């Protein structure tokens, strides 16, 4: 290649060209907003009384956590279909505009900015992973648009401000529930912990579990970590085996837990595993097989519960998607319904009014339990404990918040 370095030449033209290019590019960026679920969004924030009501959703439709985004999306869309079939909200139909954030906080922030400022949505639904909800929630708070997270359990999410809500319980509660269950029901004295240090969810739940468990007189035999992306856990499991615990608390996602169970059994570590709502997927037992038998985890709901809401939801979901809905789908459904309920009660669809209506939610009959929004904008609701038995998660107990 030739080696001429820059010398000055006619640059005026360049400036004009550059300006034209930039303008053109941004035009192109604006033109690309089509697609997604909504056709032509005409709703304004604050709610002009005509046209459809536009609600934004951001989720991980691609990337490592894609199944979470897709389950949640299915749940939300079911709620939307229901509300529209029942005549919409005040005669207006609800439309959802969804953007993929690839499981990245930077993308989540941008997606929410775009939903609020370009698409002019009146409310936001999302995300599953807490770090993404925090990124999106800070934007929603900044612009004063209410956001409801279906399933981010980290306490920091709703601490962002008065516009961020959730319909799931939080990690300290979940950690407490599992600690209580393993200490009082299972009577374990020593438990080891293996968590994903790359996931805020896993780390937070681990901390809360340890806090509760040691306060109840239990002993943590060994605390081991892995990083999302690890596929081999033998080093950590060998350490745990040496500590001889009665159970291992694994607050990770089901994608890892199945492999962890298999590898633990191969190493001769036969104690049961304990976990949280990240385990919730039919894939858990498929991958874990025999190895995951006899393990327990806490969850938002069980599709085996006898409540009418659960039965109706499970039937509808199965008819549409041909599979049993997981907890994330149920939470997506509840988040959508809770938001629409607040919209019906709110005097207008402005951020202030909607947030007020959301925080006034009391005893809402959700699929994942009766939901009341507390002063910290968290949902107070029960957790269920499931046991993996015969290749299926089986309902064991419901633990009510105290």
């Amino acid at each position: 290649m030739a080696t001429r370095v820059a010398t000055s030449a006619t640059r005026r033209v360049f400036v004009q060209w550059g300006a034209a290019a930039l303008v053109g590019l941004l035009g192109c960026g604006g033109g690309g907003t089509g697609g997604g679920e909504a056709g032509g969004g005409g709703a304004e924030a604050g709610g002009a009384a005509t046209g459809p009501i536009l609600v934004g959703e951001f989720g991980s439709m691609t990337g490592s956590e894609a199944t979470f985004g897709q389950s949640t999306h299915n749940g939300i869309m079911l709620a939307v279909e229901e509300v529209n079939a029942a005549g919409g909200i005040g005669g207006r139909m609800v439309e959802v505009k969804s953007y993929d954030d690839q499981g990245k906080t930077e993308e989540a922030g941008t997606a929410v900015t775009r939903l609020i400022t370009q698409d002019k949505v009146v409310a936001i639904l999302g995300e599953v992973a807490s770090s993404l909800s925090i990124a999106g929630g800070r934007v929603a708070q900044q612009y004063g648009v209410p956001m409801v997270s279906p399933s981010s359990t980290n306490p920091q999410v709703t601490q962002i401000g008065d516009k961020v809500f959730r319909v799931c319980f939080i990690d300290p509660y979940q950690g407490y529930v599992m600690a209580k269950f393993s200490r009082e029901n299972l009577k374990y004295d020593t438990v080891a912990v293996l968590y994903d240090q790359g996931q805020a969810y896993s780390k937070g739940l681990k901390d809360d579990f340890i806090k509760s468990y040691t306060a109840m007189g239990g002993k943590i035999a060994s605390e081991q970590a892995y990083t999302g992306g690890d596929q081999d856990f033998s080093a950590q499991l060998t350490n745990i085996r040496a500590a001889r615990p009665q159970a291992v608390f694994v607050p990770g996602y089901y994608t890892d837990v199945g492999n962890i169970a298999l590898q633990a059994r191969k190493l001769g570590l036969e104690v049961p595993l304990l976990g949280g709502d990240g385990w919730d997927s039919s894939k858990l037992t498929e991958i874990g097989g025999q190895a995951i038998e006899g393990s327990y985890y806490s969850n938002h709901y069980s599709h085996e519960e006898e409540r009418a809401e659960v039965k109706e939801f499970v039937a509808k979901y199965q008819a549409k998607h041909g599979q049993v809905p997981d907890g994330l789908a149920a939470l997506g459904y509840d988040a959508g319904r809770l938001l629409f309920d607040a919209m019906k009660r709110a005097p207008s669809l402005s951020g202030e009014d909607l947030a007020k209506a959301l925080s006034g939610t009391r005893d809402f009959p959700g699929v994942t339990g009766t939901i009341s929004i507390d002063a910290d904008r968290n949902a107070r609701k029960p957790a269920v404990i499931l046991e993996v038995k015969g290749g299926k998660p089986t309902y064991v107990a419901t633990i009510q918040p105290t």
Partner: protein
Amino acid sequence: MTDLLQTLLNGLAVGSLYALIALGYTMVYGILQFINFAHGDVFMIGAWSAYAVAAALGFTLAGGDPPGWAAVAVLLSSMGICAVLGFFIERFAYRPLRSAPRLNVLITAIGVSLLLQNTGQLRPVFGTQPQSMPALLPDTTLFQVAGVRVGLVDVTVVLLAVAMMVGLQWLVFRTRFGSAMRAVSHDHRIAALMGIRVDTVISFTFVVGSALAAAAGFLFAMKYSGLKQPADATWVLLGLKAFVAAVVGGIGNLQGAMLGGLLIGMVEMLGAAYLSPHLRDLYVFVLLIGVLLFRPTGIMGSTSVEKV
């Protein structure tokens, strides 16, 4: 004692897997002097196509013990799929860039890597759900030493890694085709003048490299039966560590790849067991930098003097 032995065994098993992937990196680098970043993704496709073939043949977890030929059939078909894939990647993405600066080829490789990941997670291809690989190789216990269980899969991984290294060594240094490969590696223009069909040699290198990646993918799926979805960070990180292994051993050197793989596996496992499991990735990259600072071309790499 048991724990130390167990840790060493863990390191050996993981290290051999790294070595298997590293062999592919090192072979392509040896011939073309370029880092084929898409190799890790071909490995991923290898693992996933093994799953897809097994599922298509009707071997599922619930379907009882698969027949003995199942493993061979699945292995060969996934190697075939990846060999074809490797051929097309080279033909359409890398060959047009043969005389372009190396950075370009690297970026094309990144492009191919993104393409494979994102195509892989489309619903009609492999989808976004993790899947469970049926146990085609029964993981029976071969023997036990001091309370440490040695399983069939681990032994197969180690043996296959050694066999492939020896096989490649033979191919490169003992066959006519191998001399052609070495000639191309030395100077592809002069090699062309000597009557060597450079394009054929390079295509062949990619086909072999990709088939190796598929074999590694198959064994990976046997060892860790819960396959994460194609765009998961696991695959990228595995590819990266295998690449680090190739570099630590001396990229371009086949024994080096083996040595590097084992070294990385051991460092990771010993570090996680005796220092802290939190910093597992750190040990790998510190080892990499440490080795490169003292031996700039890796442990077994050859230093070449640049001619003026």
